[in-house]
């Protein structure tokens, strides 16, 4: 498929060279958030609420301040008043004001000369609380009589008569539901719940901040987006954004959870109060689970109708989600994507964003999509089962394709759902015979991707090698992908390109590595900056040859005379132009700044085989297949890695990961012992098929691939368990006690 102006034959794209940061990462040299120290550095610690909901009556810091080695203590009183909207939410979440809103909410922080003294001092800070009634469940939080988390938090969208904890309301759809359901031969209606899951990055939040009384400072931090950090810290502290230079460390996983701030403003505030001494802070795992954002939990009602031959006639869904004590549960995205896989004439989605006494949710890989997919793809599967239809054929019959009007309005451009379904159907995994207590599940999922504000620079060194500067932190090998795209654009070897992640002082604003945007947006920016650079390189050659710049083309790393001058001069390699650039006009570099708008979604289809122990209810994953559209896989091994990682996070969310709150509203499982992410022995190899339906909005056809992979596993596994046990489980996780209860007829 050749697209206008899009390359189809590549030299470097699609190869799998070693990543440039690989050597540092296998030798322990790579520097992450907690790996930097500075002379005179202090260490911070945070005091956190042991209550799910409580008035803060008094904070006595005198004993802590009296401890030898303590240099500063801060409370909310050390932050400016008068913030509004999301800035206020962020400030309130980083440091509680009048009330502690969840178990683990920060109420004070201390900086001392050693980590142990800081911890000891934190224990000496006395906080007087007046516990208030709390609520942690989404349905309970919007029920009559539920404790009000915050009055007046609802926005314009919320209809009258709802509980004050409902803060945003969404309603979208088209067609005539009544007519659509009347056309169906079978209508199934079911309710579903999913628990909150944590991103579970292995590197806890960590930073090293320094700020003087003039509001100028520096911050070393593990983050997905350092410009976001700069903006948020400046807002929370009441300082100017440019006063703060933020340098991203290597990042030990984020998955959305590191697109916001928690301890970063505290480290800067402590530093400012301690006379500008740098303050290092790091969260414990318990703090990460209690106080950083997991995803929202959800409660959903789905109704879908189908004809005997497998056509979806109508679909409706109601989605209630709590994202902690602040607005922001991704129910807006949930309602958009819920039925986005299919061509459905009559559809309606209603969503409620609800406050509860839990930590402020943060983005987690395809935020909002996995919960919706669990519910909608489970109902679709049940329709197929009861109508004796093949789940892939049925999906193919209804699949969105180019020109289909998406359930959220616009028409799709070229998309690859059909191709992923066909590849899944053709894969040997789909034909493996199954034994007793085994079942196969299929599901598809979607993430629409993102462009966002993006800056990149490309500079030519004196020896002709190339430095690419981008602003999206490299989580999964994106430096290699940028280098491949730059190598392709310049026609020079991959090894001649070095990619740096710049700090906030060195480039224009960049949104974080989120929304599956890094390879798409920073990649596009890199290519465009390279083209800008190539134009200048051609001009230098033209000047030397004394011909028009327009008469010079760029091929295989060389300027070449073309048109009337073709063949007049030998090709001039980049190294030659670079060697002379000091005398031909100075440094040569290229730039791109913009908000790339050509992103296009990535669809995936997963096929999973499970075995369920009928006596214990434990589910074992036997085989797992991920098929997903990458548009164009720049570095196929890293694309596979995204597919596999996303799928396994979805497996964890489905089987064992959950936030467990006690009657007291405190988190019961704030550690990796009982917040059970998958371990190596839980899993088989994860088979992958990369489908490539090029995205016309990227020079090389790239689609972001990071997020989609977490969406299909939830329903795919539930559908497989349905086949293995005969039971439709509608509540996640599929913990063994729940599955066993269903098998024994009590679920």
């Amino acid at each position, binding site marked *: 498929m050749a697209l206008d102006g899009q390359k189809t034959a590549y030299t470097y794209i699609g190869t*799998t060279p*070693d*990543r440039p*940061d*690989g*050597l540092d*990462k*296998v*030798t*322990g*040299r790579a*520097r*992450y958030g*907690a*790996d930097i*120290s500075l002379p005179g550095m202090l260490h911070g610690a945070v005091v956190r609420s042991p209550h799910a909901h409580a008035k803060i009556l008094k904070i006595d810091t005198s004993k802590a301040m009296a401890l*030898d*080695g303590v240099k500063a203590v801060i409370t909310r009183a050390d932050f400016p008043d008068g913030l509004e909207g999301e800035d206020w939410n962020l400030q309130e979440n980083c440091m509680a004001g009048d009330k502690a809103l969840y178990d683990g909410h920060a109420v004070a922080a201390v900086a001392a000369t*050693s*980590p*142990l*003294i800081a911890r000891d001092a934190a224990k000496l800070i006395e906080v007087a609380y007046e516990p208030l009634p709390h609520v942690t469940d989404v349905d309970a939080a919007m029920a009559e009589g539920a404790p009000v988390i915050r009055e007046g938090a609802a926005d314009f969208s919320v209809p009258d008569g709802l509980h004050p904890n409902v803060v945003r309301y969404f309603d979208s759809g088209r067609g005539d539901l009544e007519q659509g359901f009347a056309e169906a031969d079978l209508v199934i209606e079911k309710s579903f719940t999913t628990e909150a899951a944590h*991103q*579970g*990055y*292995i*590197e*806890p939040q960590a930073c090293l901040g320094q700020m003087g009384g003039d509001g100028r400072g520096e911050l070393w931090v593990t983050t997905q987006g350092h410009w976001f950090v700069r903006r948020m810290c400046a807002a929370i502290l009441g300082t100017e954004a440019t006063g703060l230079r933020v340098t991203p460390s*290597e*990042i*030990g*996983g*984020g*998955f959305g959870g590191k697109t916001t701030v928690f301890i970063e403003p505290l480290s800067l505030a402590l530093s400012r109060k301690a006379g500008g001494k740098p303050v290092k802070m*790091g969260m*414990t*795992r318990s703090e990460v689970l209690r106080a950083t954002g997991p995803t929202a939990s959800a409660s959903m009602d789905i109704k879908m109708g189908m004809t005997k031959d497998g056509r979806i006639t109508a679909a409706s869904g109601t989605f209630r989600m709590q994202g902690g004590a602040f607005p922001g549960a991704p129910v807006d995205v949930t309602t958009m994507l819920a039925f986005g896989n299919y061509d459905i004439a009559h559809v309606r989605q209603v969503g409620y964003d609800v406050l509860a006494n839990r930590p402020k949710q943060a983005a987690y890989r395809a935020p909002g999509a996995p919960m919706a997919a669990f519910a909608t793809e489970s109902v679709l599967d049940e329709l197929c089962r009861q109508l004796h239809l093949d789940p892939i054929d049925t999906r193919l019959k209804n699949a969105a394709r180019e020109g289909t009007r998406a359930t959220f309005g616009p028409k799709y451009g070229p998309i690859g759902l059909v191709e992923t379904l066909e590849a899944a159907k053709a894969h040997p995994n789909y034909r493996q015979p199954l034994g007793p207590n085994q079942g196969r599940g299929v599901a598809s999922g979607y993430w629409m991707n993102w462009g966002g504000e993006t800056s990149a620079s490309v500079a030519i060194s004196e020896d002709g090698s190339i430095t690419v500067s981008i602003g999206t932190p490299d*989580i*999964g*090998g994106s430096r290699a992908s940028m280098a491949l795209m730059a190598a392709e654009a310049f026609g020079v070897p991959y090894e001649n390109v070095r990619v740096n992640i710049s700090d906030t002082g060195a480039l224009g604003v960049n949104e974080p590595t989120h929304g599956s945007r890094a390879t798409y947006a920073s990649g596009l920016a890199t290519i465009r900056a390279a083209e800008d650079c190539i134009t200048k390189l051609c001009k230098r050659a033209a000047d030397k040859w004394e011909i028009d710049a327009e008469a010079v083309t760029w091929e295989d790393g060389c300027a070449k005379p073309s048109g009337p001058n073709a063949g007049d001069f030998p090709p001039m390699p980049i190294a030659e132009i670079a060697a002379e650039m000091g005398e031909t006009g100075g440094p040569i570099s290229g730039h791109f700044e913009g908000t790339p708008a050509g992103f296009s979604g990535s669809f995936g289809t997963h096929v999973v085989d499970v075995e369920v122990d009928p006596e214990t209810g434990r589910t074992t994953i036997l085989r797992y297949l991920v098929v997903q559209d990458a548009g164009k896989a720049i570095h196929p*091994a*890293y694309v*596979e*890695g995204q597919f*596999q*990682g996303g*799928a*396994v*996070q979805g497996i964890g969310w489905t089987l064992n990961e959950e936030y467990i709150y006690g009657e007291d509203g405190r988190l019961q499982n704030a*550690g*990796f*012992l009982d917040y059970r*992410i*998958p*371990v*190596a*022995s839980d*899993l088989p*190899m*994860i088979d992958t098929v990369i489908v490539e339906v090029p995205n016309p909005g990227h020079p090389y056809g790239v689609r972001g691939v990071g997020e989609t992979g977490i969406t299909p596993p939830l329903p795919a596994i539930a559908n497989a368990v349905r086949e293995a046990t005969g039971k439709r489980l509608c509540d996640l996780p599929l913990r063994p006690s729940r599955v066993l209860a269903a098998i024994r007829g009590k679920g």
Partner: protein
Amino acid sequence: MTRRLHVSTTLNGDAVDFLCDPRETLLDCLRDHLGATGAKEGCGTGDCGACSVTLDGRLVCSCLVLGVEAEGKEIGTIEGMADGETLHPLQRKFIEHAALQCGICTPGILIAAKNLLDRNPDPTETEVRYWLAGNLCRCTGYDKIVRAVMDAASELREAS
């Protein structure tokens, strides 16, 4: 403040010493007193394996060892895995097989995997998976990690 204790030990073959509070873990001491930040703290409670090191050749979580317990011991960390510029085959295979994404778990997994291959040069996939069950990786889904370990084992067997 607790009196600090003097500890003499061996780190990757070099004699080193440090002062520490008895409450400090070996991981704290490696990172804060010896400048060896290759071992990472992912949990502090022995559940993630990111701080894996060897103590007298035995694979341990350095967060579950006190610094004072290292007296007279030999500690092996990721910083000592390569032989000068020459990477250990496991290190090379991890890069080649794309067995790391963010890389935070990588030092611990490499130490653990080397300890496995030192004991069992020909492990099955299942043996690799169970040996590494205490090393959490959130990025890769383990597929490429297991492949890299198996491939490195194969190369090491051929070389010996």
